[in-house]
């Protein structure tokens, strides 16, 4: 979608576009990274995009 004069829309993942293909479960479990004391799902990279 084109940006408007008064609104700039950041590029974001379309949650519904790949229903059925997404959800492979291969991505990192949240607590395996750096926190161990809080949940940060959003900072886990998508494994499918890394391929």
């Amino acid at each position: 979608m084109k940006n408007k004069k008064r609104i700039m829309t950041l590029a974001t993942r379309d949650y519904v576009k790949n229903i059925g293909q997404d959800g492979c479960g291969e991505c990192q479990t949240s607590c395996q990274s750096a926190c161990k004391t809080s949940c940060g799902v959003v900072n886990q990279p998508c494994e499918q995009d890394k391929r």
Partner: protein
Amino acid sequence: MVLDVDSGSVHVTDDPVYEIVRLYGDLPEEEILVRLAESFPEEEIREALEDVRELILSGLLFSKTDHQVRLQDAPVTAPVIKALCLNVAHTCNLNCCYCFAAQGTYKGDEALMPLETGKRAMDFLVEHSGSRRNLEVDFFGGEPLLNWQMVKDTVAYARSLEEKHNKHFRFTLTTNGLLIDDDVIEFTNREMDNVVLSLDGRPETHDRFRLTRGGRGCYDVVVPKFQELVRRRTRGTYYVRGTYTHENTDFLEDILHIADLGFDEISMEPVVCPPCEPYALTAEDMPIVQVQYEKLALEMLKRDKEGRGFRFYHFTMDLDHGPCIYKRIAGCGSGTEYLAVTPNGDLYPCHQFVENPDFLMGNLREGIVRTDLQETFGRCNVFARSGCQECWAKLYCSGGCAANAYHMSGSLLGIDEYGCELFKKRIECALMMKAAETMDDAG
């Protein structure tokens, strides 16, 4: 800035659009025109209204998607186990009083995990991981370097299973750094996908809690070791990870100190402890801490432009290629795809439940005995938690940490309100940084 929760769309807007969005659901357009007439010229308001309408038609504003229905058929929620926190040492060579693991013992006996238990854990993971290829193992404690040879031998055993079972192990080592030597540096670089190095920041901050059993601070010992490990790291990731408490609510200074030591992958976590502890974060600390995050975000943008940027774990966010919707709604995975293993092979939902008898799920020999617990944790997601439904950040935290929710509210399906406030502030800052970077790129 406007966030459309269900679609995940992020819009940077001018003032007329922002005000219109605030009013749009409650008032008809003609009423909005009247209401904003004193603040903006009519032509601007009409133009802004047109932009808002177009976003709504595109499904990027006021979108209503029932993501909950997806949970039922989400492959990510299949009953497999793919990640283990391997507590290879229930003992520690430090005596940090703020440690959630009670100085490494988890309020139990001191123990080291035998190699046979480590091997059995690797077999257990392969057996229960179904079709998942990527398996994760975190060598944790206590201090895992106190059982270093066992760690190395367990890694070697796991590697021997990979080809035969079409699996790929990803290892993480979490260490306080005291025992890092050439062998640890060389092995972790070769075998560990991630290394987590515990450093709280400035010398006075680090040495306030992170004391040896003899009561001496360890900043001077571990910092050169961490620097050497990172200098020689040619693959995988690392994080220098700190904890902040009531004693250093100016933790921005600690993060910048770590960055100035040459580390560019940094995490800093709020302390996890009962509210009665003197170092627990207080209600009065909240606004102070929130400002620290805001200042951090601005400082990071500034340093990035100066070519000396660093990453902060909790501000790391890839809007375009981040987690899919299944990941965002399924919960953190504790008690289902992720378990903690004690030195004697007992299984718990995660490292924060270890040695709590109410949460003993089974052991490596018999497998999951408490299937009721497994089912309960399987239901811990963003739709089951009270308080999450109306939260704008729910698709960023997936309902948050089950252990923190339990410890702070008494229920696995409750929420840790304090933690939620901090989390939302961090996401707010991360989104602001994304917006700033995008606007810079656009000139």
